């Protein structure tokens, strides 16, 4: 039985293995993703982001438990940074979700960001599809809210939760510049800390400038550690989905996201086809030599590469 069929039958180990293939850019993964694509689109995908130390994992843990209590199946993708020097990573988010491990309705997968530009977002979208087809109701994607690829992921989900903590000071400005405008739900976690009220006020003020149609992003208080405020966040997650469906924003947003995804995938495979495949007959090397010797300019060289790609067409090898 092939991977796609096994996955659709709910085989957990197939799911785990498929994710590995996606992460490793294995060509088999694309085949499986093509085959299961029709079975995706049912899950509600939620991005959880915020600065380091905001308590995202603990919050995700508690949200998953609450939604599970409401009868739902949950996937969690926890992304941690890969060391740019060694390619290794320590993925420690499971520590804060340890007692979800043996819950049959929950599946947690830790991913290293692996440093490939744009690749993280592409692979995460693949993993989301795998979970979706597997039958998960909610898919959480937890990332540190810094770096373009993380922002790309957050933009690709249905609902984005931005987790803040009191006392960040200037950091709130930096976050604001990055993803403030895409948060759908704002959570001030560790609300028992000093300055929680001020952080709430700051967020509210910033949100006043946002021009959203029909959805005013709520600013919610929570203490993840003590399971306080969790039900309210879950209610808002559900409400946001209702809003997306009723306003037809869901269809629109997903279409827009798909558009971006197609572009990204196309870009990615063009890169592979143009450079990796081309390099076999050393075209790039030859051109580079010429450009370096001022025999040719880089613009013409680039045109030449594109031309030979178009003439050759896509050959999978």
């Amino acid at each position, binding site marked *: 039985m092939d991977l796609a069929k096994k996955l659709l039958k709910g085989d957990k180990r197939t799911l785990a293995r498929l994710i590995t293939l996606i992460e490793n850019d294995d060509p088999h993964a694309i085949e499986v993703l093509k085959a299961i694509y029709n079975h995706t689109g049912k899950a509600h995908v939620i991005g959880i982001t915020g600065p380091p130390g905001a308590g995202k994992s603990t919050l995700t843990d508690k949200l998953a438990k609450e939604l599970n209590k409401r009868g739902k199946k949950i996937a969690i993708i926890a992304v941690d940074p890969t*060391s740019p020097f060694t390619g290794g990573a320590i993925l420690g988010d499971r520590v804060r979700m340890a007692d979800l491990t043996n819950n049959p309705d929950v599946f947690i997968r830790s991913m290293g960001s692996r440093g490939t530009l744009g690749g993280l977002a592409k692979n995460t979208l693949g993993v989301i599809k795998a979970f979706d087809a597997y039958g998960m109701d909610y898919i959480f994607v937890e990332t540190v809210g810094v770096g373009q690829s993380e922002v790309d992921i957050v933009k690709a989900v249905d609902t984005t939760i931005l987790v803040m903590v009191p006392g960040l000071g200037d950091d709130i400005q930096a976050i604001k510049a990055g993803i403030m405008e895409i948060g759908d739900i704002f959570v001030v976690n560790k609300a028992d800390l000093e300055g929680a009220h001020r952080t709430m006020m700051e967020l509210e003020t910033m949100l006043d400038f946002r021009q959203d149609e029909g959805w005013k992003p709520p600013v919610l208080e929570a203490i993840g550690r003590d399971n306080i405020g969790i039900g309210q966040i879950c209610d808002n997650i559900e409400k946001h989905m209702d809003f997306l469906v009723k306003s037809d924003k869901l269809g629109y947003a997903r279409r827009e996201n798909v558009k971006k995804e197609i572009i990204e995938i196309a870009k990615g495979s063009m890169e592979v086809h143009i450079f990796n495949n081309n390099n076999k007959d050393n075209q790039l090397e030859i051109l580079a030599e010429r450009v370096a010797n001022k025999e040719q300019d880089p613009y013409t060289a680039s045109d030449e590469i594109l031309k030979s790609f178009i003439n050759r067409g896509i050959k999978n090898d």
Partner: protein
Amino acid sequence: MDRPIRVLVGKPGLDGHDRGAKVIARALRDAGMEVIYTGLRQTPEQIVEAAIQEDVDCIAMSILSGAHNHLFPRVMELLKEEKIDDILVIGGGVVPDDDIQPLKDAGIAEIFTPGTPTTTFINYIKENIIR
């Protein structure tokens, strides 16, 4: 190999001495591996389930409390129940010599005792992972 090796570093049982496990976790990361660290007080059930979800190549466990004769074989038993035979399982900690062979018989590939350099550990994983 162009994909990172994935290793689950786990502390089964109640023992809270995680210096060794953390040093190993860092050393594996610095050797280019992806390390899933599970934290303290993991049951064998949790370790095996996490290993499945994370699709790891290797489970590395550390016990200093003397409970290895119960916990290590229990992990192997659970893996067998799940019909998993492509994960390398290794252990470390204060394990008396007499206990090592029975643990290997139970399916633990290797036991590393105190004083083992992390490089030995890293090379062992690189050379012995099954997939």
